[in-house]
């Protein structure tokens, strides 16, 4: 039997070093007894130096030990558990992992499960320490403010927990004392040692007025009263759930939490306060407030006038507040057409897409960018045409983090036609380009057979001629590259024809 005594400070790092040596030496885990030692590592070194140089006779040759980063982190974390068997358990598991007799993380193996449970308990305890340490201010003579706290962790959590406080409280000096160890951070240097002073019985029982010891928290200060005020005020008495609270803030922590003393009183009064709020009769506001409320600016008061718009700016304001169909409830905003008011050509797409809906401008998404490119190639300057959509609100189905485009139905196209017809009336274009079935339906009353009709001029109701073509998003959706290229060429020809028609005058 070999006895290994680990130091109280840095015990896990030392355990890891020793296990590495023991494995290399082929010492079987059941021949080692692990113990926590008295004080500093040097004392321990005299007590029981493991004889790493001479492998035990007859043992297996040392296996090279490789563990994943997660495995090492979990092992080290679990070794901070308070279970006295932890070092032996960890050693035995590492030996089996090294020999290939165990897969890391295999929950069907009881010792592995026990180790994982230990890791979980330590991580929870460290997290609770990060949460529940409460500092009190100490007098300081230098520029850096000084704070101290007393905490009682359930596991050996101070060492894994301390670096967090060093990262967070970089501009102050602090000390956190626990029954076993004390962490001090002075001038940014973190130092962990054994707790010197006899531990006080928690903050609540700490006699105030005595000169504070470095390892002992001082008397409460004014900020603590403010904190209690905050705690009592943020509690909603209409929904007391003491069990949910205790699941996360177990009673064992309460004695060192300045706010915890308020809990019983808050819960006692909660039902009375809640009942009083429910029973209270609604009061009428004072005359002064009544008067103020009459002068409020309500969004409805900003509504533009009803009826046919006298100009394109009024039309845009009307479109933005459109509720003619249900689409407005889910879309971000109605997207109006844009372009010069005296444009000779009107280009009509289907409806705004995701980007158009967010930005509030037509033809800015992927299909719009494709349109810009092909139009440029066809000699059509987008800045000289009015671009708009048959339907002004985006219709979609939500799918996770994305919105999937949905084709507007006949009713929605019909409802929105009111706006499109006004755009046609106010711009009086010489040519309208209808891109895709929805636009064709809105402008000619028929959205069928686009591929057959494309490139042709139609004259519904004796108004401006309508040139029917594909919608650029159809090109984006075409999976076959050859077909896509052919469609793109056709689309380019159509736009070139439109440009030529207008240029011919």
């Amino acid at each position, binding site marked *: 039997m070999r006895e290994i005594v680990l130091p109280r400070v840095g015990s896990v790092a030392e355990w890891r070093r020793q296990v590495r040596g023991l494995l290399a030496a082929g010492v079987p885990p059941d021949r080692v007894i692990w113990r926590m030692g008295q004080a500093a590592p040097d004392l321990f070194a005299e007590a029981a130096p493991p004889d790493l140089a001479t492998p035990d006779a007859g043992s297996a040759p040392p296996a090279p030990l490789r563990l994943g980063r997660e495995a090492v982190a979990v092992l080290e974390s679990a070794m901070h558990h308070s279970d006295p068997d932890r070092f032996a358990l960890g050693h035995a598991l590492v030996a089996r992992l090294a020999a290939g007799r165990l*897969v890391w*993380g295999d*929950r*069907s193996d009881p010792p592995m499960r026990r180790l994982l449970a230990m890791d979980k308990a330590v991580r929870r305890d460290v997290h609770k320490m*990060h*949460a529940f*340490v*409460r*500092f009190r*201010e100490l007098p300081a003579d230098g520029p850096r403010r000084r704070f101290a706290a007393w905490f009682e962790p359930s596991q050996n959590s101070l060492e894994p927990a301390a670096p967090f406080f060093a*990262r*967070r409280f*970089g*501009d*102050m000096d602090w000390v956190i004392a626990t029954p076993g160890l004390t962490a001090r951070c002075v*001038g*940014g240097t973190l130092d962990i040692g054994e707790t010197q002073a006899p531990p006080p019985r928690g903050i609540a029982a700490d006699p105030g007025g005595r000169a504070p010891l470095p390892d002992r928290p001082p008397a409460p200060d004014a*900020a603590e009263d*403010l*904190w209690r005020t*905050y*705690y009592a*005020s*943020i*509690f*909603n*008495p209409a*929904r*007391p759930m*003491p069990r*949910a*609270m205790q699941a*996360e*803030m177990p009673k064992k922590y309460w004695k060192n939490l300045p*706010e915890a003393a308020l*809990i019983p009183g*808050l819960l006692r009064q*909660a039902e009375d306060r809640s009942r009083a*709020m*429910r*029973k*209270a009769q609604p009061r009428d*506001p*004072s005359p002064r407030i*009544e008067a*103020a409320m009459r002068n*409020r600016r*309500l*969004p409805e008061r900003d509504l533009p006038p009803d009826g046919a718009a006298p100009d394109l700016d009024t039309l845009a304001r009307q479109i933005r507040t459109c509720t003619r169909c249900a689409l407005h*409830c*889910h879309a971000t*905003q109605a997207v109006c057409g844009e372009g010069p008011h005296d444009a000779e050509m009107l280009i009509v797409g289907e409806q705004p897409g995701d980007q158009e*809906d*967010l*930005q509030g401008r037509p033809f800015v998404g992927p299909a719009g960018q494709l349109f810009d490119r092909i139009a440029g190639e066809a000699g059509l300057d987008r800045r000289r045409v009015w671009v708009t959509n048959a339907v002004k609100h985006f219709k979609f189905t*939500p*799918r*996770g*983090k994305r*919105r999937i485009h949905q084709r507007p139905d006949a009713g929605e196209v019909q409802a929105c036609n009111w706006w499109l017809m006004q755009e046609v009336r106010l711009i009086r274009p010489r040519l309208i380009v209808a891109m895709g079935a929805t636009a064709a339906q809105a402008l000619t009353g028929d959205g069928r057979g686009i591929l057959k009709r494309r490139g042709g001029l139609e004259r519904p109701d004796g108004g401006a001629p309508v040139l029917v073509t594909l919608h650029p998003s159809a090109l984006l959706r075409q999976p076959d590259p050859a077909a896509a290229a052919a469609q793109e060429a056709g689309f380019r020809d159509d736009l070139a024809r439109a440009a030529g028609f207008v240029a011919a005058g």
Partner: protein
Amino acid sequence: MTRRTLTEKLAILADAAKYDASCASSGGQRRDSRDGKGLGSSGGTGICHAYAPDGRCISLLKILLTNVCIYDCAYCINRVSSGVERARFTVDEVVRLTVEFYRRNYIEGLFLSSGIVRSPDDTMSEMVRIARTLRERENFRGYIHLKTIPDAAPELIEEAGLLADRLSINVELPTDSGLARLAPEKSPRTIRKAMADVRLRREESREPSHTGRRPARFAPAGQSTQMIVGADAASDATILGQSATLYSGYGLSRVYYSAFSPIPDASRLLPPERPPLLREHRLYQADWLMRFYGFDAAEIAPEGGMLDLALDPKTAWALAHRAAFPVDPNRAPREVLLRVPGFGTRTVDRILAARRHRSLRFEDLAAMGAVMRRARAFVTLPGWSPRGLLEGEALKARLMPAPQQLSLF
């Protein structure tokens, strides 16, 4: 307004802020103060520093700059027609409270909201001034969450997003008509537009670098929103549909559901009832199913429907779709395993990892973290077959929690 002490102001303005459920302090930019020149750190998992007796966590100093408000939202304790005590912090008071609480490890940072005084721009610029003072004068590197006022000027929102970790804008009610009735000054269009702007700015600020995606500098911890449940007649299906719309459109980190709870000096427009806490709980469960379990809103709550209060929504779905079960954990793909009641995402990941090198038995599932009381009727694998368990009304009764657990009071 009478002169009040800091303690009195804190009591009034924390009381006024407690109906906002959001408390998250996780994610965003990694910062610390190891350089010794500042205070605070952020960017990891959030920490709940305390729990109030209502079971809610206290992670941030959640206060209002002022509870004076020119709006009259019926559900709100701070509406202009309410008779509550009014108070107003100065910029310095909020900064001092935040820093002193933070130094004592009471909080992760500040969650600042406000009533609308004078104008949306006035109020928003005061809030931005607090965030700027914290960041620039105090070198504060902790978490800041600003409740954005949707009507405020774009420059103010821009600055807020660069100073704060998270921005949020409350949609308040699940339907536009509900908002028009209960919050006449608020416009659903303006709210959605503001959320769209935050999403676009976040995407712009996340310039791609050679290492791939990097966190946005604008509101690095994202944006969130809140809906009040039970103040209007909206069904659960409507609420979840609205959430799905918001998640898909604006890249929200979270939608919070706040059971409408009676407030001091309540409006006549609202029911003086106990808050529907169980309904709120079921909505959060359903929200999780949408975000992490691949469920669609319409699957969880049918059109116009309400969630079953007696059963969690996943179990309720499984009971209504028994033909899809039993499932074999040794073969089923991830998305099918995620639909088994009693299996969480971690359990599913463990099952997938373990079955790569061996065949799972029934006894293994509990060790993987599955809740077998719920899962057993829905799985089949070596060592177990549910046989008749899946059929009949008895299954539902078996899956119901014991009656006393339902009472949250």
